[in-house]
C-alpha cells in the first residue's frame, strides 16, 4: 500500500504535536517546523511526479475498500494545490524566521501554522466529503489560533468576525453533507459521483448544490459572502495575513471546484449560471474595493475577492480551457498574492505604517524589494508576458467562445482596475520620494536588527517573484499541465477508477 498521499497531512499534524511539546523553546520549534515543512514539501513533490506519470493514487485508510472507509486521493488537481500551498508556506515560514518577531513566535505561531497547513493539505487530498468537513475544521482551528495570536482589540474583533462567519459556513456544509448521505447513502466523493450519475437526486440536488455553494462561497469570500474578509484579514501580523491570503480562500474555491465538477456536474443550468453572476460581481467589487484602500495589506487583502471571482468564472464556464485558465490563475495567484502581502509587511517593519500616504522612497532605498513588488503587481494585473496574463488570457478566450459577453467584459475591466491599484501603491509607496516626516528608506538609517530582518524578509519576496517568473517562462508546460488536469476534472474516469476500481469505470 502506498502511504505517500497521507504523509503531507499526517506528517504535518504529528510535527505540530512535537512543536507544541517544545512550546518554551522557540529555536527548537524553528528547526522542527523547517524539517516538517521541507519533508511534507518533498513528499508532495514526489506525489506530483508520481501522479503526473501514473495517474491518480488512492489510499484506503485502514484498508477498508472505497465506499466504506475513508479514502485519500491524490489526483493532478490535489497534488498541484498541495505542492503550491507548501511552497508558499515555506516562503512565509522563511519570512517569519527572518522577521524575528519574538512575540509572534513565542505565542505559538509555528505550531498553529503547521496545524493549519496540515488541515489545508488534508482538505486537498481527501476523497471523502465528510472528511473534507473535518479537515476544514482542523484548518479553521489552526487559523483561529493564528488570527487571534497575541492580538489587541482590533485584531480580536477581526478574529471574532472571522470565527463567527466560518462556523456558520461549516454548519451549512454539515447540513449539505447530511442530506447527501441521506439521499445517496455514501459520502465518498467518487461513489457520490457515480450514484449521482446513475440515480440522481430529483428535487433535492439543486437545493443541496446551493447549500454547498453558500458554504464554500463564504469560505472563498465570493461576492455576497465576502464582508468578513476586509474586516479581518488585515488585522493580524503580515505573516499570518499572507498565509491566509495564500491558503484560506483558496481552499474554499478548491472545494467548490472539486464538488461542482465531481458531485454536481449536471447542475449546470442553475448553479453555474448563478456562479457566473457571482463571479462577475466578485471581480468588480474586489477590484473597486481594493482601489479604495490606503494600506498596502488592505489593498491586497480586498483584491483577493476579485481574484476568487476569476477562478469561479473559469469554474462556471465549465469548459476545459476555462477550467485550465482558472487553475493556472489559482496557482499564480497563491504565489503572487503572498509576495504582495509580505511586501506590505516589510514596508510596515521599515516605516512603522502600511499607509501608503505616509510611505515613500522605497524604490530609491530598497531597489530589490521594489522590483519584486513591481513584477508581482504587474503579474497580478495580467500584464504580458508575466504569469497572470496567461491565466486571464485563457479565461477571457473561454469566456468569449462561451458567449458570456458581460462577465468577460467585466473580467477585462477589472484587470485594468487591478493595474490601477497596483500602480497606486507603486507610485505612493515606492516611486515618489519619502515624505519629510519619514526616515529615509535607504539602508543604514535603522537599527542593525531591523536592517538584517528586512534583508532576510526581502529574500522571501524575491523567491516568490522568482517563482512567478519561472511560471511565466514555463507557462507553456504549466498551462499544458492545467489543461490535462481540467480535462481530468470534466471527465473523471481515471479518478473514479483509482478510487473504486473497475466498477467506477462503468460510468
Amino acid at each position, binding site marked *: 500500500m502506498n502511504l505517500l498521499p497521507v504523509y503531507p497531512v499526517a506528517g504535518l499534524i504529528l510535527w505540530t504535536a512535537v512543536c507544541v511539546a517544545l512550546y518554551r523553546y522557540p529555536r527548537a520549534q524553528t528547526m522542527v517546523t523547517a524539517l516538517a515543512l521541507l519533508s511534507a514539501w518533498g513528499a508532495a513533490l514526489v506525489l506530483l511526479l508520481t501522479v503526473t506519470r501514473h495517474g491518480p493514487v488512492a489510499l484506503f485508510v485502514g484498508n477498508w475498500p472505497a465506499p466504506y472507509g475513508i479514502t485519500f486521493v491524490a489526483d493532478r488537481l490535489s497534488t498541484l494545490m498541495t505542492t503550491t500551498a507548501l511552497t508558499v508556506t515555506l516562503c512565509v515560514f522563511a519570512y517569519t524566521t527572518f522577521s524575528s518577531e519574538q512575540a509572534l513566535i513565542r505565542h505559538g505561531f509555528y505550531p498553529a501554522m503547521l496545524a493549519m497547513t496540515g488541515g489545508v493539505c488534508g482538505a486537498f487530498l481527501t476523497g471523502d466529503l465528510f472528511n473534507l468537513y473535518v479537515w476544514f*475544521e482542523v484548518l479553521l482551528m489552526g487559523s483561529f489560533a493564528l488570527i487571534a495570536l497575541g492580538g489587541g482589540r482590533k485584531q480580536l*474583533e477581526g478574529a471574532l468576525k472571522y470565527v463567527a462567519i466560518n462556523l*456558520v459556513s461549516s*454548519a451549512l456544509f454539515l447540513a449539505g453533507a*447530511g442530506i447527501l*448521505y*441521506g*439521499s445517496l447513502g455514501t*459520502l465518498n466523493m467518487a461513489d457520490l459521483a457515480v450514484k449521482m450519475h446513475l440515480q440522481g437526486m430529483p428535487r433535492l440536488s439543486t437545493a443541496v448544490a446551493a447549500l454547498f455553494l453558500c458554504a464554500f462561497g463564504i469560505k472563498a469570500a465570493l461576492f455576497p459572502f465576502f464582508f468578513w474578509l*476586509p474586516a479581518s484579514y488585515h488585522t493580524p501580523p503580515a505573516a499570518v495575513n499572507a498565509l491566509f491570503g495564500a491558503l484560506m480562500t483558496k481552499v474554499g474555491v478548491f472545494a467548490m471546484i472539486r464538488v461542482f465538477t465531481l458531485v454536481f456536474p449536471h447542475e449546470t443550468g442553475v448553479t453555474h449560471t448563478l456562479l457566473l453572476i457571482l463571479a462577475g460581481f466578485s471581480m468588480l467589487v474586489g477590484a473597486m474595493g481594493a482601489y479604495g484602500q490606503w494600506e498596502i495589506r488592505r489593498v491586497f487583502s480586498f483584491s483577493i475577492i476579485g481574484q476568487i471571482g476569476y477562478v469561479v468564472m473559469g469554474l462556471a464556464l465549465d469548459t476545459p480551457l476555462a477550467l485550465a485558465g482558472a487553475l493556472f490563475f489559482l496557482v499564480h495567484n497563491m504565489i503572487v498574492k503572498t509576495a504582495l502581502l509580505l511586501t506590505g509587511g516589510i514596508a510596515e517593519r521599515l516605516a512603522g505604517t502600511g499607509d501608503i500616504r505616509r510611505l515613500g522612497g522605497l524604490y530609491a532605498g530598497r531597489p530589490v524589494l521594489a522590483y519584486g513588488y513591481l513584477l508581482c503587481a504587474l503579474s497580478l494585473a495580467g500584464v504580458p508576458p508575466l504569469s497572470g496574463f496567461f491565466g486571464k488570457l485563457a479565461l477571457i478566450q473561454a469566456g468569449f467562445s462561451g458567449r458570456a459577453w458581460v462577465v468577460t467584459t467585466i473580467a477585462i475591466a477589472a484587470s485594468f482596475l487591478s493595474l490601477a491599484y497596483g500602480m497606486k501603491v507603486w507610485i505612493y509607496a515606492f516611486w515618489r520620494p519619502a515624505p519629510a516626516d519619514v526616515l529615509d528608506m535607504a539602508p543604514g538609517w535603522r537599527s542593525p536588527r531591523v536592517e538584517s530582518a528586512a534583508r532576510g524578509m526581502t529574500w522571501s519576496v524575491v523567491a516568490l517573484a522568482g517563482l512567478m517568473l519561472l511560471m511565466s517562462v514555463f507557462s507553456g508546460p504549466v498551462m499544458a499541465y492545467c489543461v490535462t488536469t481540467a480535462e481530468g476534472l470534466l471527465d473523471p474516469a481515471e479518478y473514479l477508477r483509482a478510487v473504486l476500481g473497475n466498477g467506477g469505470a462503468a460510468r
Partner: protein
Amino acid sequence: MEFGFAIVIGGLYAAGFYMMLRRNIVKFILGLSLLGHGANLLIFTAAGLTRGNAPLTAGSGNMMMADPVPQALILTAIVIGFGVTAFMLVLAGRVSQLSGADNVDALRESEKPTT
C-alpha cells in the same frame, strides 16, 4: 416520525438564525450552537430513522439494525462543535473585556478606514 423531526429541525434552524441576528455576542454564540444541533439532527433524520438494534454488537447478526454512519458523523460533529464553541466563548469574553461592550454593532475597530 420523520415529520415530527422535520418540524423540530425547522424550529432549531429558525431559532438559531433568529438568535444569530441579535446584536448580543453571547446570543450569537447560542444561535450558532442551535444551528449546529439542527444540522446534527438533520443528518440523523435524513439518513433514515430505523427502529432496530444497536449496530455492530454481538447480538445484532441478521436483525434489523440502525445505520452506524450517521451516528459516527454526528459524534464527530458534536465533538468539533464543542471545541469551536469553547474557543469562540473565550474569544468573545476577551473581546468584550477589551471593547467594554457585548454588542456586535460596537465592534467597528477593525473596519475603520485608515485616516
